[in-house]
């Protein structure tokens, strides 16, 4: 992890309140692993904003971020223009362990979809057989369906049924055949439901929590664990954890 300056190549609204930002940086493009995030400094704000790495193009030294405008910080970030420079810490955290997989289920909910996209691309490069379930609130929020279709069978679920299947990602889990591992990122209620429903499977969950330093020094973003070590730090020990290890 380093502090790096990145030049913005493009910012584009790709779904309702959802922006895709492409930035250029050699170090990060060379070192980033799926599941890692960038801790982004936004003008006028005390705390950096953590955003997952959604894709890497090593040839062009390009990193893709996808974020939803949630509050003031992400609103400001969405207003940034091409050619502007952003200051980031990264790549931060530990990625998803991806060795020796054969059949994998990917689950992404809302702004949990971006890290799952980068992960899916990497797994597909390793010839892993993939099935993906992506959950969104409504039709207007759906993004990256075509991208996922390039490397995975993909099921889209919307809460209101305005696109794809109606309901939550967990409503379609029963449709999925055998898989040896699953990976999920999304809102906590979704992760809790997945953790419970797939308790007989080996899985990895990527978590979100309010962060300050983003590097492991301040103990802001912790998650209780089942072993007696008590808490682990999401920014440093995570954001990816084994599903059975943590208490949501």
């Amino acid at each position, binding site marked *: 992890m380093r*502090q790096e300056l990145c030049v913005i190549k493009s910012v584009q609204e790709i779904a309702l309140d959802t922006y895709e930002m492409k930035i250029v940086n050699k170090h990060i493009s060379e070192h980033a692993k799926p599941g890692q995030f960038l801790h982004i400094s936004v003008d006028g704000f*005390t*705390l950096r904003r953590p955003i997952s790495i959604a894709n890497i193009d090593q040839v062009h030294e390009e990193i893709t971020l996808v974020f939803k405008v949630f509050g003031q910080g992400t609103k400001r970030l969405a207003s940034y223009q091409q050619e502007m420079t952003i200051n980031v810490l990264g790549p931060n955290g530990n990625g998803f362990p991806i060795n020796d997989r054969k059949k994998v289920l990917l689950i992404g909910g809302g702004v949990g979809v971006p890290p799952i996209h980068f992960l899916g691309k990497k797994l597909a490069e390793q010839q892993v057989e993939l099935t993906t379930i992506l959950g969104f609130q409504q039709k207007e929020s759906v993004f990256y369906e075509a991208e996922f279709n390039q490397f995975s069978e993909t099921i889209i679920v919307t809460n209101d049924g305005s696109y794809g299947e109606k309901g939550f990602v967990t409503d379609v889990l029963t449709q999925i055949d055998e898989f040896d591992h699953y990976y999920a990122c999304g809102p906590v209620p979704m992760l809790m439901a997945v953790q419970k429903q797939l308790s007989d499977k080996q899985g990895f969950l990527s978590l979100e929590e309010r962060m300050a*330093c983003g590097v*492991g*020094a301040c*103990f*802001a973003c912790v998650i209780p664990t089942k072993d007696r070590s*008590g808490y682990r730090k999401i920014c440093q020990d995570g954001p990816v954890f084994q599903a059975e290890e943590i208490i949501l």
Partner: protein
Amino acid sequence: MIDLSVKLPGLNLKNPIMPASGCFGFGREYSQFYDLSELGAIMMKAATAEERFGNQTPRVAETASGMLNAIGLQNPGVKQIIANEVPFIAQYDTKIIANIAGSTMEEYEYVAEAFNEATDVDALELNISCPNVKEGGIQFGTDPAMAAMLTEKVKKVSRLPVYVKLSPNVTNIVDLATAIEAAGADGLSMINTITGMQIDLAKRQPLLANQVGGLSGPAIKPIAIRMIYEVYRHVSIPIIGMGGIQNAEDVLEFLLAGASAVAVGTANFQDPYICPKIINSLPEVLEKYGFHSVQEAIGKGHV
């Protein structure tokens, strides 16, 4: 040549800049960014007698020009800190200040005594002002008689110079400071965070799991300056100043108010290089305002 060094009880500092307690862990993470030997000192995360897991999350919130935190003194306990963390920092050429906290007087005494064994620790910072724990902490920091008693007890058991960290959550900071000085403190550090709250509009409840948290960052700097200015006039022990420092100009302002050295907290989260950056630009700023040394600037803002 501008002289950045300052001599405080137990602390011969090569420069007056140190990361503030709780904002720098035990140094490991920031050692990825720069050589910790550049720092005048390091104030470690608070140590308690036993391991503490701290509060529920969310533990932090953004505010205008600052942040709220309610970490709740999460730490591995004094024994682990002495065994695993102090030796790590001791590899570097910098001073080590151990921040200690507790729920009872006995706990403070226990932790202070434990640090007698840690030969690499140079001073204690008595955190009697943490707003984020249910018992102890802040009570000791708001009642001058209690604060004095605690200072005395810790002084009695410790071989180290004791800096007492003042709470700004009081109506009369001078009463507190003078009582602590009379009880034998070697120095003061100020200020800790100011109690605050943020309410989540959608959830209609306090955003932090602990409900209240401590406000830090540039928002509190004028309060820190005012309190240091007031206290400086009434005590003769040195003050380590902190609260919203972001650059070398801020450092000079703290020196003028009466601080002999300063700590940088929240600013580390925005810029991991903030401490070395301030150290590098401090000579120029001192020179610009007509000072040849840090020592020379201390208290010079008083009229």
